[in-house]
């Protein structure tokens, strides 16, 4: 029960401060779930994030459900998901009220303008973590350049090129998965 409450509160905190959709929620979820509570490893977290991209539905809800379910089964997934949307219900309905009453949403605009660049920075810091784990299998700096996983770098570059050619996300991720399977088998390495 205590765990469910913690899940609910953690995700409510994320839902409260996450501005700008699914990607923005990732660093916040990471801070709560990995850094603060240690419910998941960075590896599991990135898997979740990847899978969330490929399954239907909003990415943030997908991630919350997955984390909740891994931590505390089905009740956990319900606690995490409802926690995530709980602050939104209150805030969005209040904004709707302001909108219908006054036609604008007042001081919250300044707050959101301050948060938008902050969110970019937070996603960037999650991006650094992703790179460290993908290329060096490490969660923190410093890294040994000599031990770079060249297969990972190759897949990264190929995905990047495909991305620039506007290949869809699912196709992109599925093919990078297949590529991983083939290349790691070919070089006989266990990631």
């Amino acid at each position, binding site marked *: 029960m205590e765990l469910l409450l913690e899940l609910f509160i953690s995700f409510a*905190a994320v*839902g409260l*401060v*996450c*501005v700008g959709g*699914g990607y923005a929620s990732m660093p916040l979820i990471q*801070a709560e779930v990995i850094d603060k509570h240690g419910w998941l490893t960075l590896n*599991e977290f*990135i*898997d979740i994030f*990847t*899978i969330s*991209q*490929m*399954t*239907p*539905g*909003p990415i943030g*809800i*997908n991630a919350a*459900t*997955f984390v909740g*379910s*891994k931590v505390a089964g089905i009740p956990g997934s319900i606690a995490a998901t409802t926690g*995530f*949307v709980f*602050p*939104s219900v209150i*805030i*969005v309905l209040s*904004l*709707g009220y302001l909108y219908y009453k006054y*036609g604008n949403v007042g*001081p919250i*605009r*300044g707050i959101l303008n*301050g948060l*938008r*660049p902050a969110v*970019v*920075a*937070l996603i*960037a810091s*999650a*991006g650094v973590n*992703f790179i460290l*784990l*993908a290329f060096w299998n490490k969660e923190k700096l410093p890294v040994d350049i000599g031990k770079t996983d060249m297969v990972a770098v190759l897949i*990264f570059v190929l995905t990047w090129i495909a*991305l620039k050619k506007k290949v869809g*996300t699912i196709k992109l*991720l599925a093919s*990078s*998965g*297949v590529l*991983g399977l083939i290349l*790691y*088998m070919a070089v006989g390495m*266990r*990631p």
Partner: protein
Amino acid sequence: MSDLRDAEKKLEKAVFKEEFSYWKLFISTFMISAFTVGGGFVIIPLLKSKFVDEYGWMNENESLDLVSIAQSAPGLVAANASIIMGYRMGGFRGTAVALLATILPPLVTLTIISYCYDAFASNPYVRMFLKGMQCGVTAILVNVVLDLVLKQWKKKLVLPLLIMAGTFAASYFFKINIMYIILVDAVIGLFLMKESKYD
């Protein structure tokens, strides 16, 4: 003047092409959430085309305003959109129905997937596949970050760039609790960034 026009637009009545029912609200939101890959920015246009163009439960301009509220409010864009559109179309009960329909499909799908994940993730071949996907998703994320940073950079405003650099340093190098960082950024925004150039 423009305020007046906005007010007029809002008074435009929605012309119902189909009778409103909570069941229809539920099932159409549910289907959209269940089969749309790609998150909020893909889901919103679908909700709009369903409720505005097909059912006529809201008029065009109002729906755009509601979407911009959903996008600017904290939380998930898709959930926010269903909360506020649900409210507009069916009051608090509409909110409850639309929100439930939005979160139910991913709740079921992802719970199932998470059980499979536990069973398969330790298999070495599955690991190779997942590792490949990790590299792919890293490329996608880095691309998103570069786009966002470039967008901020092009605005050529000092304050957002300072916030960006400060927030990155505070979170990555100094490991300050994200909630505190966000609180500080929100206060800066509240007092210094109300002008429309920061939008």
